[in-house]
């Protein structure tokens, strides 16, 4: 046995406990889910599947897009030095550190029809006729309530990811661009954005996967209503398995979700590679 292959064997040995744990808590349940899944023909007749899918996809698209823009702005601000930056950076992370279900309860109070802060705010700004605005009673405003709550919570996460990308951009490039006469806006477009692209891609994929599986926020804030218009695929899959006891079809929904995520991720990677080659 050569030294090299012995080192390889030892490495595998060290990794074995972690691999074992991963296998037991992750791969095994996933495999089990695939094994239980069935009744795929029901996708064709299920009147709920496509509406739920549409809600989930639009929620993902809108939320991730908003988060990217706001997260980028936040990252740029937090990256430039100013007094008390460490404190501000820590404070910004608070929404992300809060458990979603707890935070969703708070948002439910904020959007409360009778005594919610949001209605009062709109009333004081002259945007609503009365402080009692039933935000969650309307399909459109309930959708945007979820978007707002999710963006509020996860933008800091996006910002932290993007900041790690900013850290990897060498200062010399900015200096060179400045010497060549590029202003701050131009420096952002020609230096920051292109070099940040790989990080943006990772961040967007991360967040898209998370938002696609959004459950707790919707479950607590709207329960999928009104009229089922804010029900996401994760909430629906939960109902199918635990409330309707339709295990096979519920697992099929989960498999469909996984396939969607693989497709979505593949698409994003493909688009970015295609652009990169040009």
């Amino acid at each position, binding site marked *: 046995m050569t030294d090299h292959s012995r080192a390889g064997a030892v490495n595998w040995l060290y990794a074995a406990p972690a691999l074992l744990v991963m296998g037991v808590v992750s791969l095994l349940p996933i495999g089990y889910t695939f094994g239980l899944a069935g009744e795929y023909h029901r996708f064709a*007749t299920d*009147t709920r599947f496509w509406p739920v899918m549409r809600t989930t996809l639009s929620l993902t698209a809108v939320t991730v897009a908003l988060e990217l823009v706001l997260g980028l702005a936040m990252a740029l601000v937090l990256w430039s030095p100013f007094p008390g930056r460490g404190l501000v950076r820590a404070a910004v992370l608070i929404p992300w550190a809060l458990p979603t279900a707890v935070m969703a309860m708070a948002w439910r109070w904020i959007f*409360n*029809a*009778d005594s919610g802060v949001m209605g009062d705010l709109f009333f004081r700004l002259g945007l609503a006729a009365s402080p*009692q605005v*039933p*935000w*969650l*009673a*309307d*399909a459109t405003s309930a959708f945007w309530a979820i978007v707002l709550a999710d963006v509020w919570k996860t933008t800091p996460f996006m910002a932290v990811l993007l900041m790690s990308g900013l850290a990897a951009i060498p200062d010399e490039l900015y200096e060179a661009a400045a010497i060549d006469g590029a202003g701050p806006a131009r420096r952002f477009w020609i230096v920051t954005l292109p070099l940040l692209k790989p990080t943006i891609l990772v961040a967007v994929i991360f967040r898209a996967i998370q938002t696609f599986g959004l459950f707790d926020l919707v479950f607590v804030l*709207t*329960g*999928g*209503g*009104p*009229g*089922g*218009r804010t029900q996401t695929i994760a909430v629906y899959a939960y*109902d199918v398995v*635990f*409330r*309707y*006891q*339709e295990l096979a079809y519920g697992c099929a929904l989960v498999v469909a979700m996984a396939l969607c995520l693989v497709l979505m991720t593949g698409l994003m990677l493909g688009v970015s590679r295609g652009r990169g080659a040009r």
Partner: protein
Amino acid sequence: MLRRLAPVLLIIVIAACGRREPDDGKVHIRYLASPDVGGFSKVIIDRLERAHPELKVDMVEGPAAGDARENMYSTAFMGKEDSYDLAYVDVAWVPKFAAQGWLRPLDALIAPEKLDAFLPGDLEGSRYKGKLYRLPVQSDGGMLYYRKDLLAAKGVPVPRTWEELVAAARKTRTPSIAGFVFQGKQYEGLVCVFMELVWGFGGDLLDAAGVVRIDEPPAVAALTALVDAIHVDGIVPLSVLTYQEEETRNVFQEGRAVFMRNWPYAWNLMQKEGSPVRGKIGIVPMVSGPGGRSAATLGGWGFAVSAYSRHPNEAFKVAEFFASAESQKLAFLKGGILPSRKALYSDPEVLTAAPHMKDLGRVLAGARPRPTHPRWPRMSDALQMHVSAALSGQEYPADALKAAAVEIRAAAAR
């Protein structure tokens, strides 16, 4: 040191997770219930353990939300675990639990004539495919609360029909006091509210022959009435679409509504000292529409015996003790829990403590269970969704119920 001990500790913790009965020579009967707020369950258990020294009852006080407890029971039963010997089940869970084979039929354990003492609706809701699966302990039914003072001020009589309710609400409401509030959020409570009106208008959801009738004219008329109450008559604020029981009660209790649909639990809370509407409220059975009879959706709880319990006979003994007249009277007097036994609604001691029990007895005598179908959760969700869509103006009532009927028929056929 700690690092070396950690795996050992982990194994001990894992081993301790399985249910092992304490070695005290008694039969332990375990069940899950909501937090024992009034403390009356503990009193009943004390009495039971004195009467049956061989039994020990372990009450697990779970979450207050019924859905959460339903899931905890489901999870344990799906794994065929004997974590719970008894299940304290809502009337709506009976068909699902029974169809899955999670519950033990009780017919052999109790004499049929003993069952006559219970309210008919509670008993009907405890049966699935002709077999008894639950001993009713607590009854519950929806009804109409009204503000005596506000009606009297305008000389308006207590409404008995939907038309009268709309007229009365129009006369008595003000910009700051809504006419009528109910549970309008998309959840099980909305179906309870809606079914009361469907029955009241002479319609039905799933009749005895298993025919889905929710898209027929009486049901459409009921939904149209409810939608118009919000969007045409303006007696119901749009915010009811976000209300569950507590939001509804808060609005009514703060004096911001003339009429309210709610369950009996609200009565005691609104009659408490410091409540702005104390002594100003009355209750009647829900109003009816043309061609129908007033109806109440039956709620209510009872004990079922788990199919996986190792002590089914002892478990049933506990269920019987909780369902006894003495225990139910105690639960009512200490905790306001409504009895499932008919006789208690004319019991002198009960009536002295709570004169409104006579009216309540009338409401509950007409209470009807939701359809006993194992796929009820899916049917209910379809109905919730489309009724909610109609109330929020996304669908027309007739279309909403047609769509709901298609989904309910598909669920029934599967």
